[in-house]
């Protein structure tokens, strides 16, 4: 360790995790499959895709939700991963959590079936959605409103776990899950609470959202075979694969966690963030915001770049992201880049969007804990312009002490987290 000071002085402990992805339910099951190099990407069966260029995704089709809507699936997954993390941490054995809830969730919008049903029941009276002179809602239609307020998921989850304060629902696009963790870290560091429940969830694969991302030319169109479509850092990468998933982390003040005899799974040592001002969907070619995000996290942890052993990359598999992430890593780590291992979970589980930062933080905690690096699968044609050890195709047994997890979003926000082994 070359950094100045004690990196654990401001550390926040992780005492419980939960995870759902297209690979399955539960952090242990996901870890088993991630380290086996399995893919959760399949043909979409949820809606017709014949006319679409992208027909694959990492759908979570095993939750007990019917019909599948964005709010219902996002809620079911968030509840399941929060339950798993809280139970594993043992924090709520004596009642409520002394901590706020921070949940990264997709914006709630009516899907088309819901919209048609709703407009059959109530009528706005004017505008594009009007059918007649206006029919107001009643007690009977009130649930339509409640379910489609952005705050309702957090409200229910905070009540479920007895969280303190006003629960916060947030979105920073593809950095959202990491932002939720960062808010929890800040709250505990301020001494306001001894804990935080940080969740990311995203169940937003429907035809409209798939089309939206396809319009940005962001999605892979290599539909066959589906499990080979996500190819981060490969020369022939052609976009990310949309996916669903959720993850939760119980964060705690380390002293308090130790005092109650909790098992500490790992630590968050530092957070960095920066907003890009260049373009709505592209990074500044100089990589400035990505660099500030990574360097900021390492500095916040009291470490030097040379201390980092492993990067859980944003690694979406779009031509643009992987190039920029490589540029940023090269700038921050210099020649130290050669001794880094850098892998992308998205090669296996796709891009879980709002949830990705939380999902990948949990995978990073497991890598630190188990001494195993999850691979970047589908790495058959290395991009000669990206000289990284991407842990190709098979997991690697390697003891690591400090890891960086990157999350970069459309719309500018970039977040990096430094995590450490429990030691």
């Amino acid at each position, binding site marked *: 360790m070359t950094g100045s000071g004690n990196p654990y002085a401001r550390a926040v402990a992780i005492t419980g995790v939960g995870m759902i992805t297209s690979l399955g339910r539960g952090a242990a099951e996901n870890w088993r499959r991630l380290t086996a190099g399995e893919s959760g990407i399949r043909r979409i069966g949820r809606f017709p895709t014949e006319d679409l260029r992208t027909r694959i995704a990492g759908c979570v089709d095993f939750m007990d939700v019917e019909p599948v809507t964005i709010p219902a699936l996002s809620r079911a997954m968030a509840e399941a991963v929060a339950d798993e993390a809280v139970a594993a941490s043992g924090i709520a054995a004596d009642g409520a959590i002394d901590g706020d809830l921070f949940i990264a969730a997709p914006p709630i919008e009516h899907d088309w079936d819901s919209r048609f049903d709703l407009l059959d029941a*109530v009528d706005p009276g004017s505008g594009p959605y009007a059918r007649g002179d206006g029919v107001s809602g009643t007690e009977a239609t009130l649930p339509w*409103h409640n379910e489609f307020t952005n705050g309702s998921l957090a409200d229910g989850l905070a009540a479920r776990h007895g969280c303190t304060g006003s629960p916060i629902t947030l979105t*920073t696009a593809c950095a959202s899950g990491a932002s939720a963790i960062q808010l929890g870290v800040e709250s505990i560091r301020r001494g306001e609470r001894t804990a935080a429940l940080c969740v990311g969830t995203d169940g937003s694969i429907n035809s409209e959202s798939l089309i939206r991302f396809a319009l940005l030319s962001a999605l892979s169109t290599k539909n066959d075979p589906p499990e080979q479509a996500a190819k981060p850092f490969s020369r022939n990468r052609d976009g990310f694969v949309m996916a669903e998933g959720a993850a939760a982390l119980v964060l705690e003040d380390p002293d308090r966690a130790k005092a109650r005899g909790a098992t500490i799974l790992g630590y968050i040592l530092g957070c960095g963030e920066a907003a890009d001002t260049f373009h709505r969907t592209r990074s500044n070619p100089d990589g400035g915001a990505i660099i500030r995000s990574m360097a900021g996290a390492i500095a916040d942890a009291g470490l030097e770049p040379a201390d980092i052993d492993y990067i859980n990359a944003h690694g979406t598999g779009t031509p643009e992201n992987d190039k920029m992430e490589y540029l940023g890593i090269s700038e921050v780590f210099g020649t130290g880049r050669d001794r880094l291992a850098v892998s992308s979970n998205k090669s296996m589980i796709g891009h879980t969007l709002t949830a990705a930062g939380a999902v990948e933080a949990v995978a990073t905690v497991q890598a630190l804990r188990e001494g195993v690096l999850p691979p970047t699968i589908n790495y058959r044609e290395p991009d000669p312009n990206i000289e990284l050890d991407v842990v190709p195709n098979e997991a690697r047994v390697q003891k690591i002490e400090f890891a960086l997890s990157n999350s970069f979003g459309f719309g500018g926000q970039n977040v990096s987290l430094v995590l450490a082994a429990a030691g």
Partner: protein
Amino acid sequence: MTEREVCITGYGLLSPLGETPGAWWAALNDPAVCRARVDEIATAPFPIHTIGDYDLAAQVPRPGDRRAMGPMMQYGAYAAGLALDMAGLKGETDLLQRTHMIVASGGGERDLELDRQILEGAPGRDARDAWITAQMADGLRPTLFLAQLPNLFAGNISIVYKVSGSSRTFMGEEAAGADALRIAHRRLAAGQGDIFLVGAAFASERPEIQISYNAGGLLLRDGFADLWSRPDAGICFGAAGAFLVLESRESAAARGAAVRAVLRSVESDRTDRGAGDPAQTARRQLEKMNAGPAGSETAVLSGASGAGASTGITAAERAFLEDAAAGAPVRGIAQAVGHAVEAAFLQNVILATVCIERGEVFAPLSPEAAVEAAGAGPVRRALVTGWGHVRGEAMALVEATG
């Protein structure tokens, strides 16, 4: 830990009452002006408060930037520009790179024309899915749908003004605006950042929002009515873009920025609306703020939405204020500008700041209502309430500086 003082060094508000403190003040003292901004036709049968003509290009000069936003994001971007101007941050690259942004946003803004086509042309349920998918694949335009991503609200502000410290977007109706302010306040007080741009916007004319609120039976219809005497279906939306620049006292002093007011505290909590009592939560918040009794030198700007004005949450807040703020000049701001949901709390904190700067409060907005006492003397403090229409209870205390 020693807490740092949190100062308001800039604010920008685009509202139905205009965009300058002078215009707001004149309108707030003249019910006829406020009333004239109510449009009963645009979204009939539901009246709304609307923003009149304004020159977006004055803040957002590039046409491409303007096209990438719907009206909600445009209101917000404009207000953010006003706030940065007042704080003297516009064009200050080094400072903007250290400026952290937290915004509250509703959902994004849909392509209404495409939605209209789909609603009018859709075949029966069996054939609908495939047909709609084909319509969207042909009809959605990348620029327009980017406006559907709520985080692009902040993203656009970053791009237009080069605010690049960070960009976080909170969602969740009224509470999202209050929580944006609370988190910025806490981080500043604890030294987790020196300058924050906090804001929100709401477009009262957006029909996709009205669908949802109408389903809840929440919207005032068939004519305007005074806030405190509305039926339970009592929300009358109002458009707004509201942004504040918050800064530590040290940061403001170091760069010679004028301090408009001190943001003493921000509280926001969640009360179980079924079993709990929002008034009890609000009393605890008052105690925590250690603000003492309200009294006549404390203006109370209520964010009551109008929902449940007869027997529900607005009625409960009125009862709370009649008791806890007896004798203080209470003002139900939604009467003048409508309910701006995510932007309501921040708008009211800005109006509170103006009261502090002027050392007075404007005339009662609903003179018939017993809860709104006349202002008697100088005002040194302003309390802002933000009880959400279905959840969230927030309170902020703004004080004169020095």
